[in-house]
Every structure is written in C-alpha cells, then in structure tokens.
C-alpha cells in the first residue's frame, strides 16, 4: 500500500489551496440570509434583560426581586443566588489562565459590584417593555465604596481594595496583606547589568496606553432553552461554542453531554467572544422559566460590560553599542486586568523583545485589578502594548546612532536559531524577509513633504495549536461534507474547503463546509490565538488520510489486488504495474457510487492536539501627515509585510493584515476608554469611542511573505494576530519623524498632538 504525499493533487491538476476561491458562505452573507447571534428565534421565547450596577465599586447589601417577580408577564428573575459558588482554582484556557471563582462573579455580581455595568440581576419576560419595567422593580441596596480606575493608582499601598483575598503571587516572601496586584511575573536571559555596562547608548522611557475595545460590530447575543429534564440548547455568537458549553455546564451544574451549543455566524470577535457573558444568564433564566430566553446586549452594554483589552504603563530600557548592536534590554509592564485578575501581561512580557536577538534580557510584569470591566483577549493579547514601547525605543536608538531603522532592526533581528528571551530557540522564521520586503517597496523610497513622516515597526506573535476535531464525509454523489468545530470568523470555511478539496482530489465547489455544533464533533478549543486555519487544516489532512486508506483497502478488495499494487496519487486510487492494464483508477466520486457495496459510508474523523504552531513576524511601514493647526494625524500610505508560512487563501490572509493594521491605527490615534472621577465610562458608544471609518484610512498594501512552517503539512502559520502589533509603534515613529516629538502616550489624538506642538511652538503653519 503506497501513498504519495497526499496534498495539493487534484485529479484535474488544479489546486484550490493558494487560490482566491469564492467563500462557501459568501452568498448568504451578501444577501442578508446568514444568521448571526441576534437572528435566531424560537417559538414561545422570552426576552431576557440584565440589571447592571450604576456604581464603579459597591457592596451589594441586599437584592429584593419580589416586586419584579410579581409583575404580570415576568417569567423568571435571577441573581447571584441562582449560581452556586465556585472554588478558586486556576485552569489553563488558551494562552491565559482562568478561575471559575472569578467567572461566576463576573457573569453575576456576588458580594460586590466591581465596575459600572457589572451584572447584578436578570429577568425574562414576555415583552421588552415588561422586561424593562421589571428591572426597575428590582430593589438593590448598595453600600458604595471608594473606587480605583488607573493602574498605577491601583498599585498604591493605600488604594481601595477590590478583593480582600487577593495576595500578590510571584513574590517572596508571600505578602501578608491583600493588594490589587494579582501577580508579578518575570523572564530573564543573561545578565542585564553586565549588558548595560557594555552599552554606549541607553534609552530609558515610560509609556502609557489606553484600554481599547475589540469593537466587533455585532453585540453579544444568546438564545437558550432548557427542558424540564435539564436538556439544554444554546445558540450564541462566540469564538468557541465548546468553551461556552464547558462554562455553561460548570456554572449551572449541568452534565456537559446534556448541553448542546451551536455557534451562530459571528459578527466579529477579535478575542472578545472567547468568554461568556449572556449565555449562563440565558440558560439560568430558561431553566427557571421553562421557556426559551433570548438576550442581546446593547452597544452601551458591550462597552461597559464586555472585555476591552488592558491599558498599561510600560517602562522600557534598551542599551546598544555605538554600531547598533543591542546588548541589554529591560522592561517593566503594569497591565490593567479589569475587575478580576488575568490581564494579558504574561504574553506582553514574552513578546516584548521577541523580534530581537539580545543576550541580556529582563522583563517584569504586573497583573493589576481595578474597577473596570474584566479584560478579554484582543488580537495578540498583550503584545501590541509592550512591543509598541519597545519599537518606539528602537526607533529612538536608530535616530540617535544615525542608523537606518530597517538596517538597525536587521542587525538585531531574531532569525533561525535565535534563543528567544521567553524560552524557545526559533526555527525558520521570516522577520528578516519582512524587513527586506519593506525596504524593496516603492513606498519606502518615495520622498515626503513637510509635516509628513514615515515610520516603521516590527511585531511578533507566537500563534497556537490545540485541540481540534473535524470530519469529512463522502456523500452518495461524491460531494464532500466538511464539518469543523471552530467558528468561522473571517474566511475559515474557504481555507478548509480548499485543503479538503486538494486532499481528496475533488473540485473546491464540491466541498460544503459547515461549523458543527458541540454534539457533532469531539472537543474543539476556540477560534483564537491564530489557530483555526492552522489546526483545522492539519486535522483535515488527518481525516483525509483515513479516507484514502479506506479507499485503498476497498480498491484492493474490488480489484482482487495485493496492497502493493494500489496507491493513492493525483486525486485517485490507482492500480500499479500489470494491474493497470486491467482496471481503471477510481476517484472519490467513483467510490461514492459503490460505497454501499464496498463497506458502507465513507467518512473520516480528524482528531488532533495540534502542535508546532509557527511564530509569525511582520513589519509595517506608514506615511502620515500631521496638521499643525488641529493636531489631527492623517494616514497617507500603509504597507504591511508579514510571514504567513503558506497563505491557504491569499485574499483572506491579506484581509487579516489589512484589518489588523486598521485596528492598530485606531488604537494608536483615537480609541480609548474615558472615565470620569465617578468611575463611570463616559464614551460607551460608537460616536464617542471613535473607531476608524473608511474615510480615515488609505488602501493598505500587503506583501505576503511565505517562509514555510516545517511543522505544518502545508507550511501554514497563524496570521490573524500579528497584524495588530506593529501599527502602534510604526505610527508613533512616523509622528516623531514628522514633528520631532516623541509621543509616549496613546492614543495620539488631536488634542494631545496639538498640545505637544503648541508646547514646542510648532503649531503655526509656515
């Protein structure tokens, strides 16, 4: 039994992988047919609404729900009493750790409300109007407590404490007093003191970044129905329906097997839909009301009660020799976690200096709670913050040493064999290729005018693999049903269908990919970390291997052949040697016709815990213009170069690069959570939380670098996270280039830029 390298071998010689196919779910999405979270309805469903804390920090003395329950049309009211408490226990969850003690408190406040918008109670009623009225009838007695919003203020010894039982982990001796510092972490490589002693130039600066929201256009939405026997179904917009099932079952004491979760089409997530908010509430309400309950967040609720990413204070100290070699690097990162511990400071620490080959590195990180919504993952969680600070300092060193910024990065770039400060030795990576690609662009070589500036920055993200299960089924007519268990957030089905088509030698349009519910496949970790195309395509290769082995076995029987007379090649089972004179090759479609007679249904289940995710490096180049009269920064031109390993679908890879870059532009220039002295969010809407619109940005040019990941059958690396890492630094560097002013605080919004220009006497048009 011989099998040649199975992939990329369609019978017609055409490969779908690497081409710009039309996405299988596309027509439904351009006609309004596609069903997103809020588009699902069930007969007899109730409307669910949440009562949220008006205070940033308050003890909940009592909650009286009797009047609300008595209101005609109200079918259920839930509070903290409807969720059993959970023990404190840290569980790995992707790149982060989670603790059900905190999860249960975040979905429904228990002892205290810890941020404005924290859920305190929820109702299910027969109409929106009745639900709203019922919320007003819930009588909550609060004891308002002093609050703390800023990360540095929260670390102070006399700061208001959020949790009496939070003792800083990672310090010796173990503290005897609680604090808002949940954790101290550090990584060390070499000897930084000795390294700095060798430096001719040391730049030491402090940076501040504001919390920013993922800004998905689709608010959170969930529909749940629980039967009298506990059988539970839930439709929700999520990046991981298996995770929703796990959390839902745990928080409500249900058997996992009784809970079936379907991921609806998802209207953006960027990490923000990796956690649960409404789902446990909808399930709890339905359990009580015995009717389906639908819950949809308003935009205000999305801003106030779902996770933004951390704001932070970051100190970076980098030493270089006069010829530009980095010899020592230090950083201290203080990340806001929101009301519960678990900021992305760990990846922030690990990523900070990952693009560079430096012998002596020391990075310290603090995970700090304050009276803000608990942060959730946002695209390369933690990395844009620390890498922004580092890339700003790298640029300053380039300027001070008179070295071209691309050249300086090239001299210090991580490459194959470099030992990263966070642990591993890199395999083949593409950072140098991205720098070279940028240098070769026409963009890099175009002259600029007055008030215009050019900036460059690089970025890194690990990427991840993880538990993945897919199925391939050969239908009676030879078409293929492909089922994956990771929600498709930006073209996944197109990429996976192409791989399945090439693996099985069928045309791309004969593969129908769907995202199966939690009852259809084994456990899938969520869509995130940049794993779904990487891991999903690996699992498809495994499933296809099983199918091909099965077809070869069927051919051996059909042809009365010996195993070594039959092989899979170029999309068909082929007879070898003398046998080739007697029988014709058989394709998947040929076997489909005789499936019943040759052993029954043809199907394969790919089950893996995907390893070998390849890091993806990128370099961004930006031109911008600063308006000296208003402080407004206009992005004129933008180029992204990033290593994709192998682009399964080039257009959707470009889309990741472009979308990440524009999110980064928003982070750099406009987006921020603005709090009043009262601890309340002042800009919980799209008018005041200003995300980039079409007229704010230019075309985003892309260069697809492909340095194959040797651990993946097609060479794929995750591509979704890295693109948001470089923009912050690149834009700060370009503004410095345009104005001579080094900004160290994000966002670089017009008032801030204008003030800096005015302080320097530069705000006059000359």
């Amino acid at each position, binding site marked *: 039994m011989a099998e040649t390298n199975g992939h990329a071998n369609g019978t017609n010689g055409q490969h779908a992988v690497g081409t*710009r196919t*039309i*996405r299988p*779910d*596309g*027509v439904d*999405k*351009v*006609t*309004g*047919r*596609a*069903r*997103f979270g*809020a*588009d699902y309805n069930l007969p007899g469903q109730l409307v669910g609404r949440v009562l949220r804390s008006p205070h940033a920090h308050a003890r909940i003395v009592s909650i009286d729900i009797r009047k609300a329950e008595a209101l005609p049309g109200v079918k259920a009211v839930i509070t903290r009493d409807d969720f059993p408490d959970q023990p404190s226990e840290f569980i790995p969850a992707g790149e982060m750790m989670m603790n059900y003690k905190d999860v249960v408190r975040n979905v429904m406040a228990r002892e205290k409300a810890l941020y404005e918008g924290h859920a305190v109670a929820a109702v299910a009623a027969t109409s929106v*109007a009745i639900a709203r009225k019922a919320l007003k009838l819930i009588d909550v007695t609060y004891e308002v407590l002093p609050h703390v919003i800023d990360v540095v203020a929260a670390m102070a010894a006399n700061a208001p404490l959020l949790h009496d039982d939070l003792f800083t982990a990672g310090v010796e001796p173990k503290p005897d007093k609680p604090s808002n510092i949940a954790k101290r972490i550090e990584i060390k490589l070499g000897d930084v003191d000795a390294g700095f002693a060798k430096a001719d130039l040391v730049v030491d600066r402090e940076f501040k970044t504001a919390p920013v929201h*993922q*800004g*998905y*256009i*689709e*608010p959170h939405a969930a529909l749940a129905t629980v039967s009298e026997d506990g059988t539970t179904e839930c439709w929700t917009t999520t990046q991981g329906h298996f995770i929703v099932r796990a959390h839902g079952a745990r928080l409500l004491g249900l058997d996992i097997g009784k809970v079936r979760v379907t991921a609806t*089409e*998802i*209207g*953006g*997530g*960027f990490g923000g839909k990796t956690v649960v908010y409404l789902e446990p509430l909808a399930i709890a309400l339905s359990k009580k009301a015995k009717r389906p309950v639908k819950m*949809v967040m*308003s*935009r205000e609720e999305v801003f106030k009660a779902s996770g933004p990413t951390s704001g932070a204070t970051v100190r970076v100290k980098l030493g270089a020799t006069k010829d530009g070699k980095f010899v020592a690097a230090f950083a201290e990162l203080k990340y806001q976690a929101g009301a519960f511990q678990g900021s992305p400071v760990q990846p922030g620490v690990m990523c900070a200096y990952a693009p560079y080959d430096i012998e002596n590195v020391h990075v310290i990180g603090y995970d700090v709670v304050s009276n803000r919504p608990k942060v959730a993952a946002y695209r390369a969680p933690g990395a844009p913050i620390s890498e922004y600070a580092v890339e700003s300092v790298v640029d300053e060193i380039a300027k001070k040493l008179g070295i071209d910024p691309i050249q300086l990065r090239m001299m210090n770039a991580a490459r194959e064999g470099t030992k990263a400060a966070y642990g591993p030795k890199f395999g083949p990576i593409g950072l140098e290729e991205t720098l070279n690609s940028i240098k070769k662009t026409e963009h890099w070589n175009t002259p600029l005018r007055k008030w215009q500036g050019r900036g460059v920055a690089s970025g890194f993200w690990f990427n991840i693999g993880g538990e993945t299960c897919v199925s391939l089924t050969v239908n009676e007519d030879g078409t293929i049903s492909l089922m994956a268990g990771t929600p498709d*957030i*930006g*073209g996944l089905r197109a990429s996976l269908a192409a791989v399945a088509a090439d693996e099985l030698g069928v045309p791309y349009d004969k593969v129908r990919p769907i995202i199966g519910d939690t009852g259809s496949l084994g456990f899938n970790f969520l869509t995130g970390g940049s794993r779904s195309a990487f891991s999903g395509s690996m699992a498809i290769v495994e499933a296809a291997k099983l199918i091909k082995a099965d077809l070869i076995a069927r051919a051996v029987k059909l042809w009365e052949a010996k195993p070594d007379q039959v092989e899979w090649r170029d999309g068909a089972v082929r007879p070898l040697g003398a046998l080739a004179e007697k029988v014709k090759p058989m394709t998947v479609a040929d076997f489909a016709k005789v499936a019943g007679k040759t052993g029954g249904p043809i199907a394969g289940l790919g089950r893996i815990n995907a390893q070998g995710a390849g890091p993806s490096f990128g370099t961004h180049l930006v031109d911008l213009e600063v308006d000296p009269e208003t402080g407004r920064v206009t992005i004129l031109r933008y180029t992204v170069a990033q290593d994709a390993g192998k682009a399964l*679908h080039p*257009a*959707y890879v*470009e*889309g990741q690069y*472009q*979308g*990440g*870059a*524009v*999110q980064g532009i928003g982070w750099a220039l406009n987006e921020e959570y603005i709090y009043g002295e009262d601890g309340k969010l002042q800009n919980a*809407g*799209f*008018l005041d939380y200003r*995300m*980039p*619109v*079409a*007229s*704010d*940005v230019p*075309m*985003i040019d892309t260069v697809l670098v492909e340095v194959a990941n040797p651990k993946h059958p097609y060479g794929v690396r995750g591509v979704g996270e890295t693109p948001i890492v470089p923009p912050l630094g690149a834009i700060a560097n370009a503004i410095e280039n345009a104005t001579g002013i080094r900004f160290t605080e994000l966002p670089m919004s017009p008032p801030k830029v204008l003030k800096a220009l005015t302080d320097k006497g530069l705000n006059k048009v000359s």
Partner: protein
Amino acid sequence: MAKHHVEAIVNGDPVEFLCETEETLLDVLRETLHLTGSKEGCASGDCGACSVMLDGRLVCSCLVLAAEVGGRRVDTIEGMATGETLHPLQQEFLKHAALQCGICTPGVLVAAKALLDRNTSPSETEVRYWLAGNLCRCTGYDKIVTAVMDTAAAMRKG
C-alpha cells in the same frame, strides 16, 4: 395606547403591520417582518449596519420610527438580488473577499448601491466618504472600496 396600523411597500411587496409608537423601522423589519438581513450594531445611527433605502433615500433604519413608513417604499438587502442573479456589487464583494465576518456587509452593500445609483464613477475618496457611516471592524475597508470601484467600472462598461 393602541398600536399603529401601517401599510408600506417592502422590497416591492405590499406589507401591513402593527407597531408600538417607540418601535423603529429596524425593530419591525427584524422582529415583525422577519427580515433579519438588516443588523443592529449600535441603535444610535453610528454604525450603518441597519442601512436601508426609504423612498430611494439611504437611512439608518434604527433612526426611523416604524409608524413613519406608512405608504412609503422600503428596500433592504433582501431585495438587492434579482431572482437568481446577484447584484454586481454582491458579486464583486464575493470576488474581492470584501467581507470577513459579514455583519456589516448588508448595510455596506445597501449604502454602496445608493452611491452607484447616483454616481456611476465615484473616486476612491468619494467612495470612502460615502461609506464613512458604515463601520467595518474586520477588513480595514481596502477590499470594500476596491470592490465598489470595480463594480462601478464594470457597470459603466455595461
């Protein structure tokens, strides 16, 4: 107060419905008429995901009261294709991968069609400013703008 009885033309078909005074056109489209192609992203007119045409004028349906549309013509994303043929904009969006998650797509398409109906050769800047009321968080707008420009060029050629 009693509900309002409203008769209107939606995607060319006569419809009638009852609505509360405070219900928006978007509420009625989605909840009463089950036309869920128009999306609610903000309910404040900032994101454009609920864009529809009202008597040939582009509006955010979350800012229009349902009771106001009596006797008027409403066109939504569900009416954009003709029979089995997608509108050229819909085809170009697919060809250019001008959508990722797809939640903003219906509103963007309705808005883009409104532009091309009045301007057959918009510049890139005109496309960008016209679509500035439609937030997209996934694509960075590049492929959306390209798809609209290419559609305009193709439609000019006939």
